[in-house]
């Protein structure tokens, strides 16, 4: 079973919840950090990294001997990553590639009538695999300055197996990286905070999950701050509220020391295990 932990708004507690879920399940779980632009679950898990794999993106390489400057590749490119400058009297034309604009779709290679475009690999990040006691751990890291995280997220997910309970820590928001992270999940836990910002972005996230047809429930973190509108929204729309984590200074303090809720407040462990059990019953029915 794959449970992804997502949120519309950033900083609501995705990592807090996903780490707590994984540590509560102990050796019956794997934790996968798909927030590859800023993976931080490792701060709490403190894993031993045993394997590392590079992640490469495909960019086009032009064979100027074969290229006849027809311009098809530039026309087809949705991201303006190729420009084709024609021959001029006394100056030879050329086809130029802007690697950092390329999304690696391969359309230029497919449509080139002269087969003048080859795939070239460019390293954009890496996948790290490790463990803590019996808990399996995988994370992706996107290189600084790179814009496209979905290829790294997909590589991370290729390395996981779903035979145990897999907890995916997703990036924030509702765009491509989130979709890449939660795609294929059996259930999604949306973490929010009871503030107008939290609610606004929670609504966006629920719209995404409805489209992706992934069942979901909500965890309200920092419960007690803000207002009651988030709870009212969930009740009105029949969205299960899986858990409320109170707004407590002690929880924030242990977080800032790199410790999980379930390590410093073991009384929460039962609630997290119960949450997974409830999700399992729902998913398997």
């Amino acid at each position, binding site marked *: 079973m794959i449970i992804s932990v997502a949120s519309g708004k950033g900083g609501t507690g995705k990592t807090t919840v996903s780490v707590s879920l994984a540590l509560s399940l102990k050796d019956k779980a794997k934790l996968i950090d798909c927030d590859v632009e800023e993976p931080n679950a490792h701060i709490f898990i403190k894993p031993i990294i045993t394997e590392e794999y590079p992640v490469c993106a495909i960019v086009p390489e032009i064979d100027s001997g074969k290229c006849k400057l027809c311009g098809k590749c530039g026309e087809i490119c949705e991201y*303006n990553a190729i420009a084709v400058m024609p021959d001029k009297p006394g100056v030879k034309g050329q086809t130029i590639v802007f690697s950092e604009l390329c999304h690696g779709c391969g359309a230029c290679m497919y449509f080139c009538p002269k087969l003048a475009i080859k795939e070239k690999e460019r390293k954009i990040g890496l996948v790290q695999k490790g463990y803590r006691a019996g808990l399996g751990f995988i994370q992706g890291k996107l290189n600084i300055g790179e814009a496209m995280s979905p290829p790294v997220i997909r590589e991370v997910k290729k390395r996981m197996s779903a035979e145990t309970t897999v907890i995916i820590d997703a990036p924030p928001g509702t765009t491509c990286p989130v979709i890449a992270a939660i795609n294929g999940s059996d259930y999604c836990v949306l973490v929010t905070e009871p503030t107008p910002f939290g609610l606004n972005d929670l609504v966006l996230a629920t719209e995404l999950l409805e489209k992706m047809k992934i069942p979901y429930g909500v965890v309200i973190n920092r419960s007690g701050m803000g207002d009651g509108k988030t709870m009212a929204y969930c009740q009105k729309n029949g969205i299960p509220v899986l858990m409320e984590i109170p707004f407590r200074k002690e929880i924030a303090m242990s977080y800032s020391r790199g410790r999980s809720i379930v390590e410093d407040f073991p009384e929460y462990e039962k609630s997290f295990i119960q949450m997974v059990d409830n999700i399992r019953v729902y998913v398997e029915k």
Partner: protein
Amino acid sequence: MKICITAQGDSLDALVDPRFGRCKYFAISDTESLMAEFIENKDKDGMGGVGVGAGQLMADKGVEAVLTGNIGPNAHRTLQAGNIKVITGVSGKVIDAMNRFAKGELKSADGPNVDTHFGEKGEVPK
């Protein structure tokens, strides 16, 4: 000689647009005729790579020199590959820029003078 002036409107009295890839109009003109064809820039609110696209348009139109306010690195690389002259720091009316260029008062830029995504805010930068 075919030139292009980035313009904030579609008339010769319009102001030069300080942005290249995100300008409102491209005024394509011939130094001999002092007339211009105004092409609306459909990519001005694009996500990225608009400078490359604008550079490609210049090459497709056979433009030999671009007169604008600022140019980013990707646009500059594209125009350089196409052997198209770039003149930055141009302001005032489109018609005046055309006249000054015809008199040889404007000089080519050596390189880009702004970073990528300059002029993305949707307003004309000051």
